[in-house]
C-alpha cells in the first residue's frame, strides 16, 4: 500500500516487535501472554490504537467482554485508518452474529489493506452468509489473483458464480482450473468431489451429453471414487438423453441398493411403466416387480411396491403371504407399512386385509400365541384408523389380557385414547408401557409427550429428566440445548392449553431461536466445504438454509406465537391475567426450588471452571442472558404486533418466491394471520395482498370469509368514518380514510375480492348467505363446524345480539345439530368454549355438556367435575404394580 503510515501508528522498534508477538500470541490463543504483551506496549505508547484494539479483543476472548469492547471502541477512535482496528471491530461484530455490520467493517479494513488474505477470506464468508453474490465474485477473483496456486480458490470462484446464478461462468472457471491441474494423486477424494461438481454444473446447464462423457471418462480413469454417485448420475443423465442404456443403468442401481424406491421408479419409467395402480399398464409393471423380487429375494421394496400396484385377486394372493410372514415374525410396523393402501373411496384392499385378519383369528386355537397377539395388534390399528375406536379398544383389551407385558399394545391403547380425547388415560397407558422397559428412551419420550398433551407439564419434566443430563439446570433446559423441537413445541402447546400464555409464547419463541441457530450454523461451512471440495452437498446446504423457515416446526411455532400476539393486542387484559403469578402448589414450589438449586449449581460449576483456566478461550460470542425467563415481558411488550409481523414475513416471502414444501392448510393460515397482523398495523396493501393470496388458495374457506367480513366492517366503521378514532399504533389519527397515495388502489383492490356492495347486500345478509351455502347443503373443503364458527365470529364483529350467536354455536352440539360427524374437533370445541366465555355467555356449561355427549371418552370437558380429573391426574404416574419405581429406572 502506498498510503503513508500515520505517525501515531508507528511504534519504536522494541514495541514494534512486541506488537508482532502480540499478533502471533493472539493467533495461537495464548491469551494471558498476549494480554501481558499488550500492556507492555501500552506502558510506553498508551495512545496506540491498534494495540488497544488488540487488547480489547484478547479481553473479550477471555470473557471480560464489556471491558474488551470498550477498549476496542477506544482504539478505533484513535486510529480510524488502520486495517487492524477495523478487522478487530469486524471480528467482534461477527461474534455477535451482526453479519451486516461486520461486513461493513471488513470493507473498511480492505480499504486500508486491499490484499490482506485473512480479511478477504472472512469478507467472502460474510458475503456468502448475507447472500451478496456480486460482491462475493469480486472478492473471490481478488483471492484467486493473489494466490492462483491454491486449488480451492478456483473452486471458490466457480461456486461464487454458481450461487449468483451464472452457471456458464462457473463452468468456464472449472475448465480453466482443470487445465492447470497436474500430478493428481490416485484415489483423491477431493478431486473426485470436484469432478462430480463439474458434472452437476453441466447437468444443470442442460448439457447432458458433455456431462455423461465427463462422467464416463472420469469413472473409467478411477478419478471419481463415489460409486453410488457414478451410478446415480449415469442413470439420470441417460434418462435425460433418452438413451436406451438408461434401463440398464437403473437396473444396476437396483442391484447396488435394492431398497431404494427411486431406482424402481426410474427403471419402470424406462419401460413406460409407473408405480401407480391408476396406470392402465399396471399389470405389466406388476410382473416386472415380481421378476425383480425373485431375482433379489433379500429386497423388501419390490414386494411392497407390488402391493400398491396389484388389485383384485392378484392383490389377495400377494397380501396374504406378505402379512402372514410379518405377523409371524412380529413386525410392529406392519400396519404403518400397509396403511397407505387404505382408501376411503376404494375400500377393496382394506376389506381384503380385514378378511385375512379375521380368518387368522378364527383359527385362534391353532395359531401361535405370538402371531395371535400381533394379529390383534394389527386389527386394533386397523379399526382405529377407520374411525372405530370403540372396537379398537375392545381388541386391544383382548390382546393386553393375553400378554400384559408388550409395551407396543399399551402404547397403541394410549394412542386410541388420545384420539378419543381422553388425554389423561392416554398418558397413563404410555406410562405403563414405559415402566415395562425403563431403558428405552423412545417410550420415555412418548410418555413425556403424552403428559404434555394432557397439560401435565411438571409430570412430563420429571419423566424427561430420567434421560437428560443430570448437570443441566432442568430437563427442559437440556432438551432445549439439544434442540428437541418435539419437547419445545409440545410444552408450548401444553402451556397454551393451561392458559399460561407467557410461558407458551416463551417456548414458541424458543423454537424460532433454534431455527435461527441453524441459520448461523452454516457460517463455518462457507470456508470449510471449499477446502474439502465437497461442493455439491454444500450447495444443497445453502438451499436448505434459504428455506429453513419452511420447516414445519417453524411454521407451527410462528403461527401459534402470532396468534397469541394478536389475542393480546385485541384484549390486553388477558396478558395481565396470564402473567399474574398464581399460587404455587406444594409440588410446584418444590420443583421450583430444585430447579433454582440446580441452576445455581450449574452456574457454580461454570465459575469454578473459569477460574481454573484463565487462558481459556471463550470465543467472541456474547453469553446468552435471559432477563425474561417466564415470558412475561414478551407477552406484555407493546411491540407484539411488530414481532408477529417479523415472524410471518419470512413465510410469506417463501410462499411467493420459492418452491417450498408447506401444506395447504398452513399456507392458508399464513395468509390469514398475515392479514390479521397487517390490518391491525394499518398496512392496508399488505392486508389486501394477503387476502388475495388466500383467495387463490381457496375462495370458499371459512377463515377467509371471516376476514372479508372483518375487512368491510373495518373500512366502513374505521377507515371511512370520520368520527371514529382508530387505535392507531403510531398514535396519528386517521379521520379521512386511507392515505392518499394508496387509498384508491386499496379500495379498488378490495372490490376485486368480490364481496357485494353494501348498498345492495348488507354484511349481515352476506354472512347468513355464506352460512346457508356452506354449512347446510354440502360442506366445501372445510367442515360444517368450521363454517359455523367463522360465521359466529363474523356475527360478533357485526354486533349481532348475544342470543343469536349462542344459538348458532350451541347448535353444533345439539342432537339435531352438526355434531361429531360434521367435523367438530376437540380443538375447535375448546375454542368455542373460550368464545362463549369471552362473550360472558350463560350457556357455557350447556355447551360443555353437549361436548361431553359428542366426545364421550374425552376428559377435557370436565368429566364428572374437577375431582375426577384430579384423581386421574394423580393416577397418571402411578405404577400399576408398584414394582419398578422411577428411582429404580434412574439407576439403570
Amino acid at each position, binding site marked *: 500500500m502506498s498510503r503513508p503510515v500515520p505517525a501515531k501508528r508507528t511504534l519504536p522498534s522494541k514495541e514494534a516487535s512486541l506488537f508482532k508477538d502480540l499478533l502471533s500470541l493472539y493467533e495461537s490463543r495464548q491469551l494471558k501472554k498476549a494480554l501481558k504483551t499488550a500492556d507492555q506496549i501500552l506502558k510506553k505508547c498508551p495512545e496506540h490504537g491498534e494495540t488497544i484494539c488488540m487488547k480489547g479483543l484478547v479481553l473479550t476472548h477471555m470473557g471480560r467482554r464489556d471491558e474488551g469492547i470498550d477498549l476496542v471502541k477506544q482504539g478505533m477512535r484513535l486510529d480510524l485508518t488502520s486495517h487492524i482496528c477495523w478487522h478487530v471491530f469486524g471480528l467482534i461484530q461477527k461474534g455477535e452474529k451482526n453479519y451486516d455490520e461486520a461486513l461493513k467493517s471488513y470493507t473498511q479494513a480492505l480499504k486500508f489493506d486491499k490484499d490482506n488474505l485473512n480479511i478477504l477470506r472472512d469478507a467472502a464468508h460474510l458475503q456468502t452468509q448475507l447472500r451478496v453474490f456480486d460482491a462475493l465474485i469480486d472478492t473471490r477473483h481478488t483471492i484467486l489473483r493473489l494466490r492462483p496456486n491454491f486449488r480451492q480458490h478456483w473452486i471458490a470462484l466457480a461456486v461464487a458464480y454458481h450461487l449468483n446464478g451464472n452457471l456458464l461462468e462457473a463452468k468456464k472457471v472449472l475448465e480453466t482450473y482443470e487445465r492447470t491441474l497436474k500430478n493428481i494423486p490416485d*484415489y483423491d*477424494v477431493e478431486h*473426485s468431489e470436484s469432478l462430480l461438481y463439474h458434472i452437476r454444473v453441466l447437468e444443470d446447464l442442460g448439457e447432458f451429453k458433455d456431462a455423461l462423457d465427463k462422467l464416463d471418462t472420469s469413472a473409467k480413469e478411477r478419478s471419481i*471414487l*463415489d*460409486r*453410488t*454417485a457414478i451410478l446415480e448420475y449415469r442413470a439420470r443423465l441417460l434418462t435425460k438423453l433418452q438413451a436406451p442404456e438408461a434401463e440398464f443403468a437403473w437396473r444396476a442401481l437396483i442391484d447396488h*441398493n435394492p*431398497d*431404494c*424406491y*427411486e431406482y424402481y421408479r426410474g427403471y419402470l419409467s424406462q419401460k413406460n411403466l409407473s408405480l401407480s395402480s391408476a396406470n392402465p399398464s399396471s399389470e405389466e409393471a406388476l410382473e416386472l416387480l415380481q421378476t425383480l423380487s425373485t431375482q433379489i429375494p433379500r429386497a*423388501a*421394496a419390490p414386494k411392497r411396491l407390488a402391493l400398491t400396484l396389484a388389485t383384485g385377486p392378484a392383490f389377495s394372493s400377494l397380501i396374504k403371504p406378505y402379512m402372514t410372514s410379518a405377523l409371524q*415374525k*412380529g*413386525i*410392529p*410396523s406392519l400396519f*404403518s*407399512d400397509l396403511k*397407505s393402501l387404505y382408501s376411503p373411496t376404494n375400500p377393496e384392499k382394506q376389506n381384503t386385509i380385514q378378511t385375512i385378519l379375521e380368518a387368522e383369528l378364527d383359527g385362534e386355537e391353532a395359531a401361535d400365541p405370538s402371531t395371535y397377539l400381533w394379529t390383534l395388534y394389527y386389527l386394533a390399528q386397523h379399526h382405529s384408523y377407520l374411525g372405530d375406536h370403540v372396537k379398537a379398544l375392545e381388541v386391544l383389551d383382548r390382546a393386553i389380557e393375553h400378554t400384559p407385558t408388550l409395551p*407396543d399394545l399399551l402404547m397403541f391403547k394410549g394412542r386410541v385414547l388420545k384420539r378419543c380425547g381422553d388425554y389423561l388415560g392416554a398418558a397413563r397407558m404410555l406410562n405403563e408401557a414405559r415402566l415395562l422397559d425403563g*431403558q*428405552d*428412551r*423412545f*417410550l420415555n*419420550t412418548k410418555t413425556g409427550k403424552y403428559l404434555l398433551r394432557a397439560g401435565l407439564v411438571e409430570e412430563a419434566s420429571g419423566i424427561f429428566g430420567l*434421560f437428560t*443430563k443430570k448437570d443441566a439446570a432442568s430437563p427442559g433446559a437440556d*432438551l432445549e*440445548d*439439544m*434442540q*428437541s*423441537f*418435539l419437547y419445545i413445541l409440545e410444552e408450548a402447546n401444553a402451556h397454551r392449553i393451561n392458559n399460561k400464555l407467557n410461558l407458551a409464547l416463551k417456548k414458541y419463541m424458543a423454537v424460532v431461536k433454534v431455527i435461527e*441457530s*441453524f441459520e448461523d*450454523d*452454516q457460517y*463455518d*461451512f462457507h470456508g*470449510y*466445504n471449499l477446502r*474439502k471440495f*465437497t461442493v*455439491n*452437498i*454444500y450447495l*444443497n*446446504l445453502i*438451499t*436448505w438454509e434459504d428455506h429453513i423457515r419452511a*420447516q414445519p*416446526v417453524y411454521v407451527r411455532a410462528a403461527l401459534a406465537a402470532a396468534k397469541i400476539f394478536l389475542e393480546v393486542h385485541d384484549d390486553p387484559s388477558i396478558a395481565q391475567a396470564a402473567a399474574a403469578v398464581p399460587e404455587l402448589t406444594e409440588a410446584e414450589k418444590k420443583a421450583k426450588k430444585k430447579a433454582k438449586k440446580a441452576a445455581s449449581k450449574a452456574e457454580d460449576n461454570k465459575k469454578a471452571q473459569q477460574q481454573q483456566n484463565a487462558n481459556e478461550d471463550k470465543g467472541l460470542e456474547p453469553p446468552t442472558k435471559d432477563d425474561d425467563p417466564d415470558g412475561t415481558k414478551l407477552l406484555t411488550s407493546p411491540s407484539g404486533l411488530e414481532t408477529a409481523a417479523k415472524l410471518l414475513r419470512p413465510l410469506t416471502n417463501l410462499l411467493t418466491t420459492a418452491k417450498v414444501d408447506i401444506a395447504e392448510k398452513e399456507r392458508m393460515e399464513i395468509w390469514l394471520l398475515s392479514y390479521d397482523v397487517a390490518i391491525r398495523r394499518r398496512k392496508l396493501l399488505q392486508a389486501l395482498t394477503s387476502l388475495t393470496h388466500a383467495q387463490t388458495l381457496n375462495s370458499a374457506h371459512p377463515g377467509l370469509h371471516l376476514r372479508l367480513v372483518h375487512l368491510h366492517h373495518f373500512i366502513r366503521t374505521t377507515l371511512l368514518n370520520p368520527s371514529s378514532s382508530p387505535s392507531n399504533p403510531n398514535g396519528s389519527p386517521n379521520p379521512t380514510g386511507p392515505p392518499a397515495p394508496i387509498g384508491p388502489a386499496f379500495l379498488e383492490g378490495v372490490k376485486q375480492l368480490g364481496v357485494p356492495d353494501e348498498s345492495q347486500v348488507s354484511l349481515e345478509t352476506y354472512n347468513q348467505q355464506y352460512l346457508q351455502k356452506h354449512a347446510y347443503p354440502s360442506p366445501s373443503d372445510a367442515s360444517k363446524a368450521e363454517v359455523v364458527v367463522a360465521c359466529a365470529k363474523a356475527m360478533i364483529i357485526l354486533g349481532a345480539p348475544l342470543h343469536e350467536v349462542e344459538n348458532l354455536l350451541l347448535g353444533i352440539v345439539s342432537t339435531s345439530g352438526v355434531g361429531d360427524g360434521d367435523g367438530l374437533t376437540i380443538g375447535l370445541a375448546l375454542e368455542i368454549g373460550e368464545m362463549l366465555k369471552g362473550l360472558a355467555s350463560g350457556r357455557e356449561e350447556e355447551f360443555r355438556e353437549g361436548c361431553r355427549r359428542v366426545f364421550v371418552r374425552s376428559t377435557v370437558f370436565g368429566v364428572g367435575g374437577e375431582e375426577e380429573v384430579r384423581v386421574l391426574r394423580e393416577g397418571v404416574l402411578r405404577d400399576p404394580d408398584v414394582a419398578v419405581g422411577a428411582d429404580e429406572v434412574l439407576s439403570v
Partner: protein
Amino acid sequence: MNIRRAKVEDLAGMQASNLQNLPENYSMRFWIYHLMSWPQLSYVAEDHKGRIVGYVLSRIEEPDEDNPEKDIHGHVNSISVLRQYRRLGIAKKLMLLSQEAMESVYGAAYVSLHVRRSNKAAIGLYKDTLGFEVAKVEKKYYGDGEDALSMRLYFDPEESHAQQ
C-alpha cells in the same frame, strides 16, 4: 421402507429421530458437519410419508499427529431405528451401505464403533450379523458411567486375522 443416502433435507429428521431414541444427542452443527465432511457415508430409512425412521451417521478417521501409524478407517457415530420399525433388518441394511462407501470412496481398512455394554440387541447385530469383533473395552465411556465395547470389522478378512 425406502433406504437411501442421507441428504441435507434429512438432517432435521435424523436429529429428531436420534433425540427420541438415544441418550447421546448432538446439536445440528454436528450433524451438518458430518454430512459436509463425508457426504457419501450416511444413510436414512424413510416411511411412506417421507418421515425418517432410521439413520446411520458415519465419519472417516485418518492418521494424525497423535496416531501416525493408524490405518484410515470408518467410524459409525450414531445409528438408530425407531422402536416400531425394528425387526425389518433396517439397521443391517444401513450399516452395509455405509460400510461399502467407507471402503470404496475412502479406502478404509476397517469400520469401528462404540456400543453400550448392556445393549445386547445391538451387540448381536454387530457381532453375529455383520461380523464385528470386540477390539477393547472402554471403561466409563458413556455420560452415565457405563462401559463401551469398542468394536471393529476389517473389510479384508485376512487383515482381521493379522491384527489378532
